[in-house]
Structure formats: structure tokens, C-alpha cells
């Protein structure tokens, strides 16, 4: 074809063409690209200009439509009320047509009962996963050390979860009943609440998909996931996830109740100001949430404890008795662990109520609802008595406890004296003859106990005493062998003596201070108590290293009194929950949403404490009927893996012994 010469001749133009193409192509492409980009940007600009112009025009035509209004609670950084764009309808002025009622009971009682039952069951259903998570975790952790005990823990967790399954659907049913009660009996109010909380209610409902899904996988996959260690960790993580989702669900539901009590994110007329977070995140949202998490733990512990006590009393064989004695111990441990921080969460809640509306705070503690807090004091006393009685009886069955049992009567004396101080009301109910004899409305000696200084002192002493009892219980059957035992004991005694002295001193000193400073003394008092708890437990536990034992704990020898003490705790928790829930709800007085939506129903008055007491007693008894039925259903299903198919060689000891 092309000869050598022709090839060399042709090469040059070819090369030139190639070079040309090589440089031109990207240029062409680039130019086209640039053109396109330019065209796009020009187009975009034009489009934007058109849009902006259209908007402006629209705004000019319609005039400014946004209305700004002041938030009823939130403030900006300067302290002025936060402004928001009005995006909701104003709160309705409810009239008689906005309420329906049945003839057999006032609507307010119907809604109270449906709400309370749902809350009780919800609390239980949230508590059980917490327990199960902790117990399963302990079971995994002690698997190498003590496989039998680990198996026990795991089985306990599984059994508890089984009960929770029927409770879960029952809670949902009660929730449905509650929702229908709201819609049928309080439609006007609920319409407003639903319009403000529109996305929240939907998210709440949809999150149940997550909760149910995790729950079913968690429960039904238990056996399958048990044997492979990695899968077991996944399984345990599922329980953590279950708890997280459950907590979020509770917080979402809490937002409705705290909004009613302490609204935010709306203006004075009740119009939503656009920020759903403000509406959810009322000032009481977090305190109520924390208080409810702790309360759930305590309530769940009480229920499981009662369940264990019942089976303990019913048990036929020694092994069964031992098993349920042990379950009761675990339940009580968790319940009391949750019980100790609970008053501080309650304190926080009260503080936020006062910060929100001082008048609401004063109504609670000084005004018409003050006597309810005296009843609460009675309940707290019952709780302490029950817990301490359980501890004493538990301790008594531990070998080697005799050396501490002789201190029990002094602890009881301290408890009773503290509780006497705690129970003394500021306003004493008396006949005029007694008034004359006393020479005034205040008794010269006992009258000083009516104020907060004394109450704080009393309750801190009670908690410290219980902590001491608990520490003694922990070390009852141990022969301490660490070389620094004496030093450790000295430190422990010093901490307790100092804490008691500090609490008493601050309590007495408070009388000579102005009121707002006196209230601040509760912080050092509480710090003393918490120091005894944390530092004392730490020192105590570290003294158990290589300790000898006086003998194993003989599970199954719990006395009947101890079992009934657990019953007492369970019923006291239930009644107290009803009481405090009533207080929280009725402090709104005649408002559905404080100062925004007025309660114009015939039930708007505040009940007398007697009426309230009767209704909440009914609630407490009724929920236990339900618990009994649920436990019965839980016990019905299929494989009844009783304790006797896993007879342990030795009587099991709790994990804490294996320090």
C-alpha cells in the first residue's frame, strides 16, 4: 500500500491532524460544556429571579400574613418572651357541648381510672425489660465463674419476659380504652391537644412497630440465640434497644401530660408557635421522665418481689422455696436501688414546678393539696418500714449475722424517731380545747418539726439508717480478712457518724437562717447521705476480698414476715403511685392546660382527699386483680420449666459473694 516514502510523507499531515484533534477536542468539548454551564446558570438565575419576584409579588398582593406572638413559657437570651410565628388555632373556650358523660360515674373519674390503669401496666411493661436486661447481663458475665448460677439468671430473665408479653398486649388494650375515653368524653379538649401534638402522636403510634418488633425477636429468639456467645451478646443488646425504644415511647407520652401542666411553645391564646420541640420539651418533661424511669424500676421490682413472695409462700419443695427466696432478694435489691434516688428526682420535679409557677408550687405544698403530702409522708414511712423489715428478716437468716442483729433495735428506734419528726404536720388538726391548752396553734416542742428543716433532717437520717442496714446485711456472713480491716471499719464508722452529725447539725442550724438559705441546706444534707451510700458501699465491698464465710446464705429460710414485707412494699408502691399521680394531675385545678384551656366541665372542682383516696384505692386494688390474671396467664403457657429440673449441687449464692 503506502510505500516507505509515501508513509513518511503522509506522516506529517497525519501528525498535524492528530495534534490538532488532540488539542481541539477537549477545547470543543470544554466549550460546549462551558456553554451548557453558563446556560444553566443563566437559566437558574432567571428562574430564581422569577421565583423571588413571584414571592415578593405574592407577599405584596396578600400583605404580610405572618403573625408573631409571645411564647407563654420560653424566653430568649435577654429574658423577653420568645417570639414565634403563629401556626395553629387558638385554644377553644370549652362549653357544655364539648363534654359528654355517662350516668353511672362522672367523666373525670372514668378518665382517671382508664389513665391510671394504663399507667400502671405501662410502668410494669417498661420496668420488666430493665430488669431483664440487668439480669441477663449478670447471667452472661458470670457464665465462666458459675455456669449454674448463670443459667438461673438467664432462666429468671426469660420467665419474667414471658409474663411481660401478656402484660404488653394488655397495656396496649388499656391504651386504646384510654384513647377512646378521651375522644368520647373530652372531645373538645382532645381536639385541641391532638392539633398541637399532631406529629408526636403519630410518631408514638408508629414507634410501637419498633417496640413490638424488637420485643418479639427478643423473646421468641431467646433459646435460639442462647448458645452462641456472639449471638447472646446481640440478644443482650436487643434488650438494651428495647429499653431505649420503650423509654422514648414513655417520654413521648409524658410530653402530653407535662404540656398540660406546664405548657410551652404556644402563646397565651393557645396557638401553636411552630416549634414542636418547645411543645414537647416543657420544663417538667425531663424531671417527670427521670422520675418515671426510676419509679418504673421501683414498681417493677415491687411487683416481681410480690410475685416471688407469693410463690415462696406457696412453695412445696425446698428448692422452690430457695429459688423464690433468691428471686425476691434480687427484685428487692433492684427496687431499693431505684428507690434511693427517687426522692431526689421528686425534689427536682418540685423545684421545676416552683420555677414554672410559684403559685402552683405553693398550692401543692402549702395550700389545698398540702394534706396529700402528709399522706405521702405516711406512704414513705410504710416503704421504709417494709424495706427495713425485709432487710432485718433477710439478715437474720444469714449465718454470722447475730453480731449485727443486736443493733437492729437501735436502728428501728432511729427510724421511728425520724419518722415521728417526718410525720408531724405544720397544721395540726385539733379541738379548740386542745388549742387552748397548747396556748397557740403551734406546740412548743413538737411544732418545730413542722418545717422543712426538720423534714429534710428526718428523711436523710432514715435513708442513712437504711444504708447502714444494707451494708451490715452485705457483710453479715463474711469474716473480713483484709489486712486493713480495722482501718476500713474506722473509716466506715467515721463516715456514718460524721454524716449523722452533719445532717443533725445542719437541720438545727437551719432554724436560725432565713428561709431561702435554709432550703439550700438540703444539698449538703443529701450529699452526706449519698456519701454514706456510695463511699460506704465502695469501702464495704472492697473489704470483702478473700473473705472467709460464716456459712452460705441459706436461701429458702426467709421468714413469713419477710415475705409479707415484700407484699407491703408492693402495695405501698402501687398506692403511692396512684396518690402522687393524682396530685400531679389535680394541681392543674380547673385547667385542662394550665392557664390556656380552662376546664369548663361540671367536674372541674378539686376532689376532697377522702374521695380521691377511695378512687385511688380502687385503682390500686383493681390493677392487682389484673396483675394476678396476667401472672396466671403467663404461667399457663406450655413448657413449665420448673426449678426442679435444674437441681443445683450447692445452694446458689448471689453474685456479689464472688467478689
Amino acid at each position, binding site marked *: 500500500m503506502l510505500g516507505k516514502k509515501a508513509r513518511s510523507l503522509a506522516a506529517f499531515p497525519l501528525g498535524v491532524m492528530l495534534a490538532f484533534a488532540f488539542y481541539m477536542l477537549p477545547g470543543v468539548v470544554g466549550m460546549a460544556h462551558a456553554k451548557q454551564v453558563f446556560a444553566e446558570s443563566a437559566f437558574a438565575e432567571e428562574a430564581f429571579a422569577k421565583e423571588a419576584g413571584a414571592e415578593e409579588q405574592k407577599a405584596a398582593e396578600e400583605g404580610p400574613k405572618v403573625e408573631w406572638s409571645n411564647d407563654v413559657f420560653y424566653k430568649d437570651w435577654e429574658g423577653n418572651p420568645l417570639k414565634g410565628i403563629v401556626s395553629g388555632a387558638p385554644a377553644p*373556650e370549652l*362549653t357544655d357541648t364539648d363534654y359528654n358523660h355517662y*350516668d*353511672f*360515674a*362522672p367523666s373525670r*373519674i372514668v378518665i382517671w*381510672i382508664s389513665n391510671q390503669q394504663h399507667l400502671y401496666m405501662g410502668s410494669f411493661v417498661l420496668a420488666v425489660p430493665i430488669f431483664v436486661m440487668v439480669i441477663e447481663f449478670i447471667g452472661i458475665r458470670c457464665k465462666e465463674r458459675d455456669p449454674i448460677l448463670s443459667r438461673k439468671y438467664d432462666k429468671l430473665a426469660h420467665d419474667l419476659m414471658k409474663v411481660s408479653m401478656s402484660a404488653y398486649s394488655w397495656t396496649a388494650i388499656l391504651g386504646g380504652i384510654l384513647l377512646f375515653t378521651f375522644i368520647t368524653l373530652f372531645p373538645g379538649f382532645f381536639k385541641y391537644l391532638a392539633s398541637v401534638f399532631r406529629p408526636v402522636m403519630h410518631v408514638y403510634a408508629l414507634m410501637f412497630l419498633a417496640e413490638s418488633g424488637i420485643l418479639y425477636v427478643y423473646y421468641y429468639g431467646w433459646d435460639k440465640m442462647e448458645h452462641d456467645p456472639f449471638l447472646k451478646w446481640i440478644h443482650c443488646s436487643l434488650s438494651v434497644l428495647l429499653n431505649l425504644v420503650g423509654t422514648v415511647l414513655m417520654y413521648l407520652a409524658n410530653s402530653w401530660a407535662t404540656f398540660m401542666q406546664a405548657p410551652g411553645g404556644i402563646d397565651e391564646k393557645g396557638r401553636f408557635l411552630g416549634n414542636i420541640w418547645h411543645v414537647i420539651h416543657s420544663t417538667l418533661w425531663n424531671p417527670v421522665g427521670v422520675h418515671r424511669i426510676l419509679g418504673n424500676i421501683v414498681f417493677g421490682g415491687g411487683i416481681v418481689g*410480690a410475685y416471688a413472695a*407469693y410463690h415462696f*409462700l*406457696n412453695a412445696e419443695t425446698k428448692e422452690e422455696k430457695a429459688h423464690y427466696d433468691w428471686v425476691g432478694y434480687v427484685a428487692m435489691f433492684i427496687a431499693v436501688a431505684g428507690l434511693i434516688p427517687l426522692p431526689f428526682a421528686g425534689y427536682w420535679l418540685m423545684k421545676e414546678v416552683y420555677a414554672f409557677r410559684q403559685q402552683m408550687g405553693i398550692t401543692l405544698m402549702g395550700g*389545698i393539696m398540702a*394534706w396529700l403530702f*402528709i*399522706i405521702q409522708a*405516711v*406512704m414513705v414511712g*410504710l416503704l421504709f418500714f417494709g424495706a427495713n423489715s425485709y432487710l432485718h428478716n433477710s439478715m437474720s437468716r444469714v449465718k454470722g449475722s447475730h453480731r449485727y442483729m443486736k443493733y437492729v433495735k437501735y436502728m428501728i428506734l432511729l427510724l421511728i424517731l425520724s419518722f415521728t419528726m417526718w410525720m408531724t404536720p405544720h397544721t395540726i*388538726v385539733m379541738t379548740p380545747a386542745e388549742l387552748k391548752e397548747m396556748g397557740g396553734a403551734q406546740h412548743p416542742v413538737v411544732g418545730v418539726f413542722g418545717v422543712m428543716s426538720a423534714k429534710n433532717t428526718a428523711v436523710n437520717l432514715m435513708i442513712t439508717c437504711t444504708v447502714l442496714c444494707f451494708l451490715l446485711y452485705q457483710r453479715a456472713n463474711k469474716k473480713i480478712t483484709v489486712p486493713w480491716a480495722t482501718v476500713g471499719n474506722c473509716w466506715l464508722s467515721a463516715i456514718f457518724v460524721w454524716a449523722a452529725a452533719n445532717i443533725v447539725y445542719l437541720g438545727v442550724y437551719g432554724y436560725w437562717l432565713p428561709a431561702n438559705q435554709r432550703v439550700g441546706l438540703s444539698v449538703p444534707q443529701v450529699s452526706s447521705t449519698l456519701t454514706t451510700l456510695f463511699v460506704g458501699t465502695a469501702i464495704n465491698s472492697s473489704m470483702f476480698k478473700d473473705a472467709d464465710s460464716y456459712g452460705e446464705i441459706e436461701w429458702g429460710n426467709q421468714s413469713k414476715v419477710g415475705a*409479707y414485707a415484700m*407484699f*407491703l412494699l408492693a*402495695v*405501698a408502691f402501687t*398506692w403511692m403511685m396512684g396518690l402522687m399521680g393524682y396530685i400531679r394531675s389535680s394541681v392543674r*385545678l*380547673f385547667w385542662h392546660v394550665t392557664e390556656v384551656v*380552662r*376546664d*369548663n366541665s361540671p367536674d*372541674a*372542682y*378539686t*376532689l*376532697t*382527699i*377522702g*374521695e*380521691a*383516696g*377511695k*378512687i*385511688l*384505692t*380502687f385503682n*390500686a*386494688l*383493681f390493677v*392487682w386483680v389484673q396483675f*394476678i390474671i396476667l401472672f396466671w396467664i403467663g404461667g399457663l403457657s406450655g413448657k413449665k420449666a420448673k426449678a426442679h429440673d435444674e437441681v443445683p449441687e450447692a445452694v446458689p449464692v448471689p453474685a456479689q459473694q464472688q467478689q
Partner: protein
Amino acid sequence: MLPEQHDILFSFLTIVFTVFSVIVFINVVQQCKARKDASKAWPVIFGAFILANALFTRHMFTLVQQDQMSFFKWQALTVFVLLLTWGMFFKSENIEKQSPTMIRGMFFWMMVSLPLAGYANWLPQQRSDPPPKAAAITGEMTMEQYTEMGRVIVFGAQQVAGQKAIGKGQCPLCHTFDPGDNMGRCPNLFGVEERSHNRVKEDRYKNQPIKVGETDPASGVKKGATSGEEYLRESLQCPSCYVVEGFGGAGDTKSPMPVIVKPPISLDPVELNAVIAWLQSKETPGDFAKVTVPLPSASDAAAQPKKEAASEGEKPVFVTGSEPVDQMINTLGCPLCHTIPGVEGAVGELGPKLFEKVNAPKRIKDPRYKGKATNTKEYIRESILTPGVYIVKNDETGELYPDGVMPQDFKNKLSIEALDKLVDFISQTEPPPAG
């Protein structure tokens, strides 16, 4: 629970007791079956207990709350006897394992919860009712609130230190309300309710200045009050229908009082009634027996322009200068006391007529004049801002106009532009051409 409904706790307990008797029966039957030689009477006895409890329960549900509580003791007693009988059963059959734990547990529960409920009922009871609803919200109000509304119209909502308490009605400008306080310009209104009944019967009322049945030209109202309330209303709507002796101009035929239902005061009918309600009840605080005006209905209240915000913290009167002059003058209330040519309706008789183009120079030259103005405009400005500097003499009566009647706080109510405009306008006012 309402008193006519069932008590929830006792209803629950009665059901529980019946269920309990059924459980006991089942337990007894089971025990009897396990023992061959058990007496047949036991199941019958416990069956009877079921029947008794069921009857009690049925009766309880026919009773109301109070009666349930008093009847309940019979069922409680029956259950107590049931327990004793059960114990006797155990003893006679020598049964070791006695009542099931469930029963013991439930009884323990009740022994704890019921005394707590009892404790709550033992404490003396208090009930707190919601306060009466606010008027503006529901459209309903109590008479107390209505008369208070009237009082606010007369005196204003808040007393500001240093200023006379005057509300929308402007009444205290001229009228006094305390006994014995006779300023001289307007009738003292202490005890006016009592007088209002008698006055309509007087001869002078029926005939002076116009007869009953005639229409007053200024307000267009036909005179004809027959009751105290109508007299009070007529006094507000048509002050010249009847002039109290000694207080009128031109031989007591013309009242210096403005027509209250027209600008600048313009009370609407609801407000008018509120004022009348207050006038009728002010001598008897807390007692509204003498009030004869009806409360406003919801439709009235809805029609009433909503001014809750204003009534609590009254928006202060303020003219910015962008309004037309006669609107400014009306807003400030000058026509109440001054006659101002060029301003319709400005026929006030309480203060000097405003012919300042002619009068101002004369006033400045008056030996009594102690102010600092040197020309008409300055004089007018001074008269508005500090009225007390020079008091004009009333040429017709030969006396000075009363001091302290012209409000001292116009300096708070005018912007500079408004003041200038006003001064400009007034400096041009002159008497109507004679003839």
C-alpha cells in the same frame, strides 16, 4: 362520685367479696372431695354464703354512695363470719395446709389499702371549686363584674399616681362622688340612685326644660323617664332633657354635659348599662339588689368590641399629628369643655370659648397674666401644656373659670407635630361674625 351515683370503692369491694365467697366454696368442695368422710353440710353452708353475698351485692348496686357506705358493714360482717366458719371447717377436718396464699395475700392487700383510704377520709375534708369564669371569655358575667365594668368606665382601671382617676366615660372631670363634695360645676352623684326614683315624679322634671313627650333637639331623644333606671339612662343620653337646678346654662335649660352616647365619649349600650348598674349599686358595695339593668347576653358581649387588653392597661391617649385636626381635637376631648368654631359638636360650656385669634393678645396683656408667652401661638401652647399658669375670667358670670379642671397631662398626649398643628389651628379661631 356524685352523691346520686355508686361509690366506686364499695362497689368494687362488694363484687370482690362475692367472688371471694365463690373461691372459698370451691376450696371447700375440693377439700371435701379429697376427704371421704367430710360432712356434706359444709358445701351447703358455703353455698349459702355465696347466695348471701350475691344478694348483698345486688342490693348494694341499688343504693347510692352514702347508703352503700352504711350498708356495707353488713356484708363485711357476713364475710367475717364466713372467715370464722372457714376456720372452723379447717379445724374440724384437721386440715394442715389452710387458706391458699392468694387469699391471704389479697386480704393483706386490703388490710393495707383500706385503712389508707380510711385515713384519707379521716382527715378533715376540703373541696376547692373553680372561680367564676371571666366575662370577656364566655360572654356571661356576674353582676359584680358588670358593675365593676361600669366603675372602670367611670374611673379607669388603674390609678396612676399624681393623676386624677378618669376612665373612658370622663365623668370625674365634672362630677364628684364623695358625700359633701360639691365642686359646683356638676351635680354630686352621691346617693344618685335614691334621687333617681324621686326625680321622675317631680313637677320640675315633667315640665322643664322640655315637657315629657317632647324631643330634645340636641340629642334627638324623646323625654319620658318613668323609673330611676330610665332617668339615669336619659341623663346620659340626653343631658339637656332635664337640667338639675342650678347647674345649667341659659336659665337651667341647657346642660353643659356632653351627650355620652355620641363622640367623643361614645359609650355603647352595654357600657351605658354598666355605668347605670354601677351608679345604682355604688352606695351598697356587694349588694346588687337595687340594680335593675339586665346583664349583657352573649350576643351583646360578642357585639361589644373586644378591648380586654385595653381595659387592664389602658392604652394612653396619644395623637401623633398625622390625624386631621378635628379628629385630634375630638380624641383629646377638648369639645367637652370648650366651644371651638370650625369643630362640629364642640359646644362645651365648662371652659372659655376658643376665639384665640382675638382673645389671646388680650389675655397676654392682662395684668393678672403671669405666664411667659409673648404671642398668640406661644400663649396657646402654654395654655395646653401648663393650663394652670393663667386662669381665664368668665365674662358672663364675672368669675374665674374653675382651676384644675383642664387636664394637666396634655404634654403626654401630644407629639410635637400634633401640638404644632393644634396651635396653628387654634390661633386662627375667631368668634362668628356678628349678625
